[in-house]
């Protein structure tokens, strides 16, 4: 008798029209953006650290080295700023929500698969765009950097898409550590990686060994793209794009496997 279904007392289709499914994705992304834009403890460090560093090293101290230094550092501090919404917005929030029961609750609800991760991704991309726009504004006004509109747009694009590999890395760390442990671990990834990729000081100023191993860091490759966007790197870019894609796909797969196993 198990196969025979009786009519449900109230009958309406449990299937969802495609438009409503899409609507659920949009709502998720909207909520995710709203909740973090309203959270100063999340937004302030993301915006202020790159802005402060750029003001100090890119604008005030770079005066003697001319506009090229300000232009060069716009790209590197842009990358530095773009990494953090990916690592922290994605990684820390995932770690916290696995701990607080929110992820469990969402998994029990009929949330469309992927809406949770795509929502966080869009939030990270929006925050990355915010950081790049802030740095661009400082460069153009305070730093006296001259950029064509197409160059500024290219840097914005590099920032918005460049956040994705760091989302994947953050997500992986978020699946390894629950709750408050994740922020510390991510700092240990974020700060040394930024330094060793030449985001704080140009690579040629770093020890030879660090210069040689720089290509293992994804931030190095993103920096190459950002430098190209502002017209300071004329080398071929395809290799860097492929490395970043592979990096994002690799960590996404690792994270997805851990999430499926451990929840």
């Amino acid at each position: 008798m198990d196969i025979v279904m009786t009519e449900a007392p109230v009958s309406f289709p449990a299937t969802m029209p495609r438009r409503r499914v899409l609507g659920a994705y949009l709502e998720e992304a909207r909520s995710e953006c709203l909740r973090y834009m309203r959270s100063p403890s999340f937004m302030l460090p993301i915006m202020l650290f790159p802005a402060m560093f750029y003001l100090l090293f890119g604008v005030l101290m770079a005066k003697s080295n001319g506009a090229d230094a300000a232009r060069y550092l716009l790209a590197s501090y842009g990358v530095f700023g773009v990494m953090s919404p990916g690592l922290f917005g994605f990684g820390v929030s995932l770690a916290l929500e696995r701990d607080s029961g929110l992820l469990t609750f969402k998994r029990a609800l009929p949330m469309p698969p992927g809406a949770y991760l795509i929502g966080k991704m869009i939030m990270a991309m929006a925050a990355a765009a915010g950081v790049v726009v802030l740095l661009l504004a400082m460069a153009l006004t305070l730093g006296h950097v001259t950029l064509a509109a197409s160059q500024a747009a290219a840097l914005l694009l590099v920032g918005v898409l460049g956040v994705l590999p760091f989302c994947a890395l953050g997500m992986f760390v978020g699946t390894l550590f629950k709750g408050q442990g994740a922020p510390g671990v991510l700092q240990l990834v974020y700060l040394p990686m930024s330094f060793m990729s030449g985001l704080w000081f140009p690579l040629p100023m770093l020890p030879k060994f660090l210069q040689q191993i720089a290509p293992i860091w994804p931030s190095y490759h993103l920096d190459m793209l950002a430098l190209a966007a502002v017209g300071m790197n004329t080398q071929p870019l395809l290799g860097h794009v492929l490395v970043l894609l592979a990096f994002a796909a690799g960590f996404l797969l690792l994270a997805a496997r851990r999430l499926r196993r451990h929840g």
Partner: protein
Amino acid sequence: MPHAEKPIARLAGAVKRYGSLTALDGAELQVHPGELLALLGPNGAGKTTAIALLLGLVRADAGSVQLFGEDPQSIEPRRRIGVMLQHAELPPTLRVGELLRLTASYYPNPRSLQESAALAGIGDLLRRPYAKLSGGQQRRVQFALALCGRPELLFLDEPTVGMDIDARQKLWAAIRQLIDEGCAVLLTTHYLEEAEALADRVCVMSHGKVIHEGTVETLRARVAQKRIRCRTTLPAELIRDWPGIGEVRQENGRTYIVTAEAEPVVRRLLEADPQLGELEVQRAGLAEAFTELTRDADEASTNPQREAA
């Protein structure tokens, strides 16, 4: 027990192990359309795991788990349920209205924002950020999120923890209203009066198994103890020798008797002591029935566990 309708949620021989711990050990559970089933049991009995299986949060190691005849890990059957979990911290900076709007967007045919808010009694909280609410208000918001999708089956995990008496009564009324509309409810609670007030059927779990299933009445009847209280001059030793007497004690000039069948004892009491006064007969509450059942199960399970170890 044959049932006219097919169950909308079902565990059949469900087994779930976490390492060496067996959280569910062949649990049988059925929820039928429109009924309120209360799941009772001490901590660690397997209630949470049973719920987690039915919500598709974990996969059973053996046995079958069905929600509306389907695997709860697929999204379609979950579009017909509402969920209120015991531990879920919602995003603190989102407003109540935004939380409702987001959750409703997951469902094919949700209630309007106003309707959900009115049912849960949070109409005045819609513009408030979630973090600014009191614990009881937050529970009410979680209840609103559970019902906003117009579910046919509602999972309520300890819904009234942290609520004062007034808020609890209001939530009970709202639950009854949903049941009147044809919604089924699977309620886990450790407030027995909550099960007594709401449940059509109760399931008592212990050590990963369902050890009793039936109406509140049959659960009480299963431990058919009655308590007699009276003021009498008869000595306790005398009453203790009567047939069918469980326990007799005297305190502050009153005599307390526990028996399986009250009527013959009362008749005999009145015959033996015409001066007897302040007579009171009470049926054992669900609490006593429940304690007795789980104690029996504890005793029964000690031996096989030793073998396993």
